[in-house]
């Protein structure tokens, strides 16, 4: 398939999204939902267009992406390392699992009063909350993946002269990768949700800030436009992730 047919195929592939948007349009034209809470798609798109053409909007997007990206990055790096370490060294597993198990089910926005004491209301506290919320799927994936590392592979590496550290790096980490990356996909999606919810509560800027203040002001056209932007960014990030994961894991097929 070259570019023309490839484009058509891509269009076909993502047709269900068009269908979803059509459903939205019908919902408001046939008054299935009060336009007071869900404005017609057309007005959302037109205020979305106005919004996207301001520099301020991109400033907000940029700061959100920074927070989300940092939180996610920390979650993947620290969460992945923690999961692998927990599988490789029992003491780490014992010491870290109660902490992880207690913090994961807490609503992160409820922790804002506590993180505010320590980090204030700036980027750091939002990054921390996103990190905490995204970490567990990565940790669970890395942990299960590392535990699934085949014993004979570890032994092979050792008998080929690899040190224990080297074996961890060369055998356990790649073995954990498929499940770790699968956890990272969940984390990626969660990071967008957490980013919006943490910015909604207190913020100077960001997409969650926009959603919060547009919503409180009853400007639902613009608010849903921002929601759509978040969804589009999330979708795009997910597709990039999938392409990346396929590349990293190409040895599997």
């Amino acid at each position, binding site marked *: 398939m070259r570019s023309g047919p490839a484009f058509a195929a891509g269009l076909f592939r993502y047709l269900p999204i068009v269908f979803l948007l059509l459903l939205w349009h019908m919902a408001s034209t046939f008054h299935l939902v*009060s336009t*007071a*809470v869900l404005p017609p798609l057309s007005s959302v798109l037109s*205020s979305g267009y*106005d*919004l996207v053409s301001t520099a301020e909007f991109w400033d907000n997007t940029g700061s959100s992406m920074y927070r989300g990206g940092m939180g996610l990055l920390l979650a993947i790096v620290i969460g992945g390392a923690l999961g692998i370490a927990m599988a490789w060294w029992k003491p780490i597993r014992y010491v870290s699992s109660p902490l992880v198990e207690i913090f994961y089910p807490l609503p992160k926005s409820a922790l*804002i*009063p506590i993180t*505010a*004491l320590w980090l*204030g*209301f700036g980027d750091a506290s939002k990054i921390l909350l996103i990190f905490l919320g995204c970490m567990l799927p990565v940790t669970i994936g890395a942990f299960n993946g590392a535990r699934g590392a085949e014993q004979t592979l570890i032994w092979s590496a050792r008998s080929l002269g690899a040190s224990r550290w080297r074996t961890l790096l060369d055998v356990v980490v790649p073995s954990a990768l498929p499940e770790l990356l699968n956890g990272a996909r969940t984390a990626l999606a969660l990071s967008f949700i957490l980013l919006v919810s943490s910015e*909604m*509560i*207190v*913020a*100077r800027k960001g997409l969650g*800030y926009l959603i*919060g*203040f*547009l*919503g*409180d*002001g*009853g*400007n*639902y056209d*613009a608010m849903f436009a921002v929601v759509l932007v978040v969804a589009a960014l999330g979708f795009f990030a997910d597709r990039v992730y999938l392409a990346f994961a396929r590349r990293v894991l190409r040895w599997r097929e």
Partner: protein
Amino acid sequence: MRLWKTLLGAALALPLTLGAALAQTPVKIRIAWVVPVANSPTILYEKPDILKFKGKSYDIELIRFQGTPPMITALAAGEVDVALLAYSSLALAIQNAGMEDLRVIADEAQEGVDGYYTSPFMVLKDGPINTVADIKGKVIATVGQGSAVDIAMRAYLKKNGLEDKRDYSSVEGAFPNMRALLTEKKADLISVVLPFSINPELVEKGKTLFTVKDSLGKSEFIVWVAKDGFLQKNKAAVTDFMEDSIRSLKYLMDPKNRAELLQTAARVSKLPEAAFSGWIYTNKDLYRDPDMLPDVEALQRSIDIQQSLGLLKNKMDISKYVDVSMTQAAAKRLK
């Protein structure tokens, strides 16, 4: 040798220039807000040429909050300096959060002032409710128990012998959704504020059963607060800040500058100018004191009502927590 002398001179001069620079560094005032435009700080500092001291003795930073509770936390943690609180939240912050150092410094908006707007509680025009007594057994929608309008509603219903849970049930909804809750019959009585209360569809389908004024009379509804420590340390800067604020408010209230006001409101809220043109800063809006001086008596009255409803544990003398000296000084300078 020359080099050494120059270096030495520079080294000696450095602390001096730095000190001078520090003295000139404006005091950063972090302001917490919730609703754009309706909270005046979101539009007061948009026109640099009437702000004499901004960037000189003070500077501002606006921080949006989802509601009052995180704002009180932020005040307590010293993460914001000036916050806009309703009378009810103010009393709770002082009494329950133990923030004895909170001071009312200025007025934001007052309810129930004669000749000005007051927020309505609305029912369906052709619905079953025509008098307050009809509320019995019905569902009322509030923005949250214990909030400023909620207190007004409960107080009025109580005056008419109606108690929550016994005589009516309450559900929670945000102001923007109240219209839909009423028209879709999810609630029988709703509580709305500007600009949602003047939505054409709501005006067409709904009618006002009673108002905040009916319940509370004249009420100091929303005030600016700051911590005493911050005020004492930055008296001069805060006075300058208040002077700019009052000047800007007066400028925006001036009918001559109405076009500019509407433009600013539209830009800040991302809503069309039409959303504001009918009411903002006119007598169809809540009353705002032109000198930003709060009505302490009215404030005390509202808090007493709050306490009588059991939404505040103990009686409280609010005048102890008012420090309008800087606002007064600023207003005087503008005379």
